[in-house]
């Protein structure tokens, strides 16, 4: 699913996908047993879904990349709540981890933790202080 969701111009490497699975597992490990159970059932549902949404008698994991993408696109528009929920839950979970990767964020144009705007407040404060000092000096 991650491969279908995030393949852009370059294919995702097997290592990246393996690391990804470990990260996802780590993220949801502190959740309750019931939530993890629910996520597992949604994953099983997703795996059996192709026959209902693209008419192919195959497990999701055995589909070609193109068909996997087609399934996801249909699920996103599905009117049937469990189908939509399975898509939303996994897309959110996977995207959260995928787009946290520093290289990925840099590619998107995110500059990292450096911030500039608060310095405007500091400059204003400095300016006010200088004015106060000047006022004190003249009086």
């Amino acid at each position, binding site marked *: 699913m991650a491969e279908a969701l*995030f393949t852009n111009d370059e294919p995702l490497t097997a290592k990246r996908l393996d690391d990804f699975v470990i990260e996802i597992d780590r993220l949801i490990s502190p959740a309750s047993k019931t939530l993890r159970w629910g996520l597992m059932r949604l994953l099983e549902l997703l795996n059996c879904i192709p026959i209902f949404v693209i008419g192919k008698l195959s497990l999701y994991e055995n589909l070609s990349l193109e068909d996997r993408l087609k399934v996801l696109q249909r699920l996103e528009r599905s009117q049937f709540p469990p189908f939509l929920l399975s898509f939303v839950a996994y897309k959110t979970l996977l995207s959260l981890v995928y787009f946290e990767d520093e290289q990925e964020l840099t590619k998107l144009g995110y500059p990292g933790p450096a*911030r500039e705007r608060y310095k405007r407040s500091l400059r204003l404060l400095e300016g006010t202080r200088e004015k106060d000092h000047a006022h004190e000096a003249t009086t």
Partner: protein
Amino acid sequence: MRAEPVTRGREVTAPFSAKCDVVIIGSGAGGAVVARELSLAGHSVIVLEEGGYYTPAEYGAMTPSNSLRRLAREAGFAAAVAVGETPFISLMSGKCVGGSSVLTGGVCFRIPDPVLHEWSTELGLTDLSPEKLDPYFSEVERAIQVETVPETMRSRSTELFVEGADKLGIKMKSLRRNTHGCKGASRCNFGCPNGAKMSVDISYLPDALANGTHILADALVQKIEILGGRATGVFGKFLDQVTGEPKVPFYVRAKAVVVSCGSLHTPVLLRKSGLDSRHIGRHLTLHPAFRVCGIFDEYVGGWDGALQSVYSDDFQSEGITLVSAYSAASILAAGFPGSGKEHYRIAAELPRLGVFGGMIHDEGMGQVRRWISREPLISYRMHERDAHRMFKGIQILGKMAFAAGAREVLLPLFGSEPIARESDLDALTERPPSVRRFECMSFHPLGSAKMSITSEQGVVKPSGETWAVDNLFVADGSVLPTSIHVNSQLPVMAMSLRIAKQIAADFSRISRRAA
């Protein structure tokens, strides 16, 4: 905060028992205020917190996903089960020392006067008038350093939010937040990386610790001990370091027990402990929140500036509040529509993205129930009127985005394409899509153990003590009797302070009953 008095329950290997004047369950906005107040009044206090303990330096260095994993309930993936025509609503609440206050945007509002007038007149809660609550709000505001966000701290995303509002004649006002030295990292929801948000682990708990309060983290309270109609202590277990499951037992005997587990867990603990009022767990309000994103031609870089800095109450009479908002890049990207290249195309617009937020004042159609899990089963039915409010709010935000110059607008509607014409927004009211397709979040669950003037109408008395059990108090958002229109952190703290002062004033009677 000094680390020594905070015991990490995961490291405790032998059964633990203790005796104190007051045991408080939960260390968030409610519990921390009560702990400080009662310890300053000279009482011995123990705080039991299910979540872990992390210093501001530790959580400030976490990535958003790591922060969700360690500081939030259900690793940030809690949600309400939608009943009927109701959207999927994700619920964010804290599970750490400091509770949800560590994960809020820091926005501070007093409860609006019309809401308090309703409480003090229609509901008969005469002590909850604006005048009578004013001293509590003022005291908390001083303690958590509430300040108005200066215009210079507005992000470009917020400036566009304001420009769009100006063009439509909507008035924007500066928000107040509990910050000191904010550097505009725009990631308050994952724990401030600069220790600038005055969450209760920074503003309240250090005083409580200095006055002898003992805080035990990783301590899951499983039951309140009730003997002869009064609360006498709590039973629970420390969580295992590896599995996170309950392991080493503890017992704390106390003259008074204060439940401050938040609106999602307080009802569960009360029920587990044998209280059976039909109001426990009912009347849950969520303040469903939504966001509309605009893609602009210019560089926006909305991550640079205060996460939230302006709001509009122009539509408050219609139950809609507009609020500037932003989030971590990864969270925003997770919400973009499409898969594969289409998703990536929109994600690549992140630097040109403006985020406009809103929330509605809902009617309280939620319920919290105990079930097979440690976490509660939360169900929510959205009132038809609230659904209309949401449609309208989204439409207003979309129009503001176009007015501000957005070339594409992303609606919080699963499966919808970005829209490029303002006229497409009219379809929201002319041919409303199914409410189930809306993407909603909730940060302010309230009202599941509400305060009332008779035992038939609610769970706790105006003093915060439960109607059913003596010396058992509730001090958190669950006691608020209705939805409040605004962010709940300051209201929860002010109400908890009021309850704490009443406990302190009445402690000799509480002690006599406990004897």
